[in-house]
Structure formats: C-alpha cells, structure tokens
C-alpha cells in the first residue's frame, strides 16, 4: 500500500499550523489547500502578488484580473492583500513565508533540491522556484517516492541541476515522511501497509528510524494498492 497524490497532500495539510503563511507549488502541492482541517486559518501566498488566496474561482465567476502563479483564476478570502512582484518576493526571499510546499525531481541526503530542469527538457524555466527554495524557512517537498521508472528520487547526491542546496526540511512521499537534518535523513512515518525496511529499500541514502516512527494517519480513501502503485 502507499498513498495517492491526494493522500500526500492530505498528510502535508495536517502539518501546517494555524496562522502559517504558505506558498504552494504546482502539482501535488496545489492539492494541499483542499485538505486544511476546518477552522484552521492558513494564509496562502501566490508569487504574482496575492496573500490570502481562497479556492479556485467557480466557472463563470472568474475575475479576469485575478489569477494565481499557476495562471488559474482564484478568489480572495477576507483579510487578503494584493501587491507587486518586488513585495511578493520580499516575502519569499526575506524569510517571511513559513512554508513552501514544492514538487521535486530529486532530493539529496543533505536536503539539496532539484526541481527546475527536467531531464531532456528543451526549454528551461525557473519561475519562482529558486527564490522559494532559497528564501522560505521550511521547504516541504511532496513527490512520489520513485521515478516512473521505479528509481529512487531521494539520492545521496542530486544528478540534476540544483534549485538550491541544503534547503529541504521535510519530504512527504506516497511511501514516507522524512525529515532532513544535519545528522541525516530521519524516517518519521511510513505509508499504511509499508514498514521502514521497505521504505529504505526504495531510498538511496541511509534512513535513521526515529523512536516513535509510525504509520501515517491518512484516511483509507487515500490509500493505494501496490498494484496501482506499480503501474504508475
């Protein structure tokens, strides 16, 4: 068993504390906002100058002048604010954003992140990825544990060009929740039905299993059977 994409997003959402300022990347991170526990106040930031974003706009109710960094039409919650790019990236680079939830291609044992140049990609594009990786206090990576060829994405050393060195704090995958520390990678949680040795077998660097390492608390609807996982 492992987690669906929604399952990863669900698990990350539980981790974000009340009152935190959060930037969500494209892909799995985008799903996180849908799983924030009711009543918990979280402020979502978008690079193009929005703090306090609400859900995507309902079809037919889009505002032509209000998109997020992924070019989707969004809404504002009460207490939102609007600003220009220099201010928006002051929030990011100045360490004011508490959490960036980002996708990743590779993460190293020391927290190096590679997520801006895919192998074989012809036209590069970095967007705000580097600013987020360098500037945000807590960089959370969400990704599938393995490439679609079944190779580990958590490596001793990244092979792809880095987005930022030593920036990742937590890795949430369909198999595990891992904390990156100066002492190495700590395995804190594993997906339902897995165990630490299985997670280790799919992870290149050694994992230190914390006392209290436990199964992830994620609803059954977000679990995925091994077969489904193998075909991904």
């Amino acid at each position, binding site marked *: 068993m492992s987690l669906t994409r929604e399952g990863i997003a669900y698990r990350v959402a539980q981790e974000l504390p009340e009152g935190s300022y959060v930037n969500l990347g494209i892909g799995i991170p985008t799903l996180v906002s849908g799983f924030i526990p009711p009543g918990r106040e979280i402020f979502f930031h*978008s690079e193009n100058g929005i703090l306090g974003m609400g859900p995507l706009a309902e079809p037919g109710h889009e*505002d*032509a002048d209000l998109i997020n960094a992924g070019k989707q039409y969004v809404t504002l919650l009460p207490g939102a604010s609007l600003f220009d*790019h*220099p201010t928006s990236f002051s929030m990011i*680079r100045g360490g004011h954003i508490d959490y960036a939830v980002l996708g990743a291609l590779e993460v190293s044992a020391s927290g190096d992140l590679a997520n801006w140049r895919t192998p074989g990609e*012809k036209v*590069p594009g970095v967007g705000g990825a580097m600013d987020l990786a360098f500037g945000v206090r807590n960089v959370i990576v969400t990704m599938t544990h393995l490439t679609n060829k079944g190779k580990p994405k958590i490596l001793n050393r990244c092979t792809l060009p*880095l987005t930022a060195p030593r920036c990742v704090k937590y890795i949430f995958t369909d198999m595990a929740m891992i904390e990156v520390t100066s002492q190495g990678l700590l395995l804190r949680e594993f997906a339902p039905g897995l165990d630490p040795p299985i997670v280790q077998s799919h992870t290149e660097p050694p994992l230190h299993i914390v006392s209290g390492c436990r199964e992830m608390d994620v609803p059954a609807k977000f679990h995925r059977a091994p077969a489904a996982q193998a075909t991904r």
Partner: protein
Amino acid sequence: MVDKTLKTCEEAVAGVFDGATILLGGFGDPGLPGQILEALRLQGARDLTIVHNGAGGGTHALGGLIHDGKVRKLIASFPANPGNQSFQEKYLKGEVELEIVPQGTLAERIRAAGAGLGGFFTPTGAGTELGAGKESRMINGREMIFEHALHADFAFVRAYRGDRLGNLNYRMAMRNFNVPMCTAAKFVVAEVDELVPVGGIDPEDVHTPGIFVDHVVEVVRHPEYLKITTEGR
C-alpha cells in the same frame, strides 16, 4: 496643461527602434498590454530584447512578436510553458537568445534600475547553474551573488485606471511586474481600461505615480484576452 494621454497604441510604439530593450508588463493576462503589443508587432522594429516573466502564448501578443522574428533576445523567468510554441520553435532553432533569471531576481533587478541602484547581493541562485560565474561573497554567513540593475529603453504595461498626469491604479493581480517596470525605462506607456479625470484616483490609491509614466492610452482589452476571460482557461 500637462496631458500625457495618447489617442492610439500606434503612437505609443512609434519611437521603438531596432535593437531596443523593452520591459513588457503583466504576469499572465493581468497587466499585460495586449493592444500595445499588437501595435508593436505591426510597427516593424526588429532585433528587440524583451524582458517579461514568460514567453507569451500562442501567436498573438508576445507570441506574435516572436513568431514574426522581431525578437532577438528574451530575458525571462519562465518561458517553458507548453503554450509558448512561437518561442520554443525559434529558441530551438537558435533564432532567439534566452537569459533565464529567477522571478524574484528579475523583479528586483528591474526595481534596482528604477531606484538608481547599481545592483544588489541576493542568496537566490548561489551554488546553482544560474549563479555560476557570478561574483559571490559571504554576507551574514550566507553565500550571496551579485545581480546588476536591469535598465531598458521602453516599458509597456497595462493598468486599470489612469489619468492625464500618468497616475496609474491597478486592480487585483495587475500590479505584478508593472510597478517596478514603470520606473526602469526611458519611455513608459500604459494602456488602461479607463481614463479618469485628474483626482479620479484617490492619492492613496495611486500605485504608479505619474512621475514614472510618459503616456497613457485608453483601449478596450485585446479580444484574445476577453475571450480567454469569459471562457476561462
């Protein structure tokens, strides 16, 4: 009486010369000066360097300018969108040069130019491919790289409301790169949804003071964007 209004977008782009560097406002559609871009496409200037977050979509606006071979170089943070065929084709053929700049660094380099600064040290990019070869130093225990101010000959932006003094007001997510871009070019024109009388924008609501703006032109939004807007995408 000071009057910075223009009647047409053709006047806005009349002075653009071959080899000019142009700051092109907007992030996605909000703030993108679509009608000025169309006028620029017809105006004929070539070998342009365009500074913009992305590479434009389809074959209209910036996509059109690139498609027509008017752009020699693009300075952008995210030209990699699948919709940017015009750019991708030209880039892969080696017909357009590309300088990739992290989005925050791009905004800050433009702001620095408008603020009369020579450049700044930022952590973003240090120890990566995009920081390679750049001057670097440790500041407060952190490696930082030097980034130069980015000046331009022209800046074209879109705002929501404008007046004859060049004061601009944006709505929602339109401010983006437009606020710094208006400060960093020798000649700045804004297309606006509505031209209002002087005093029609409250002093508290002026996001770009008229001092930064040479001309304002009232135009209806580019139909391509109206379509996108009503249909969503």
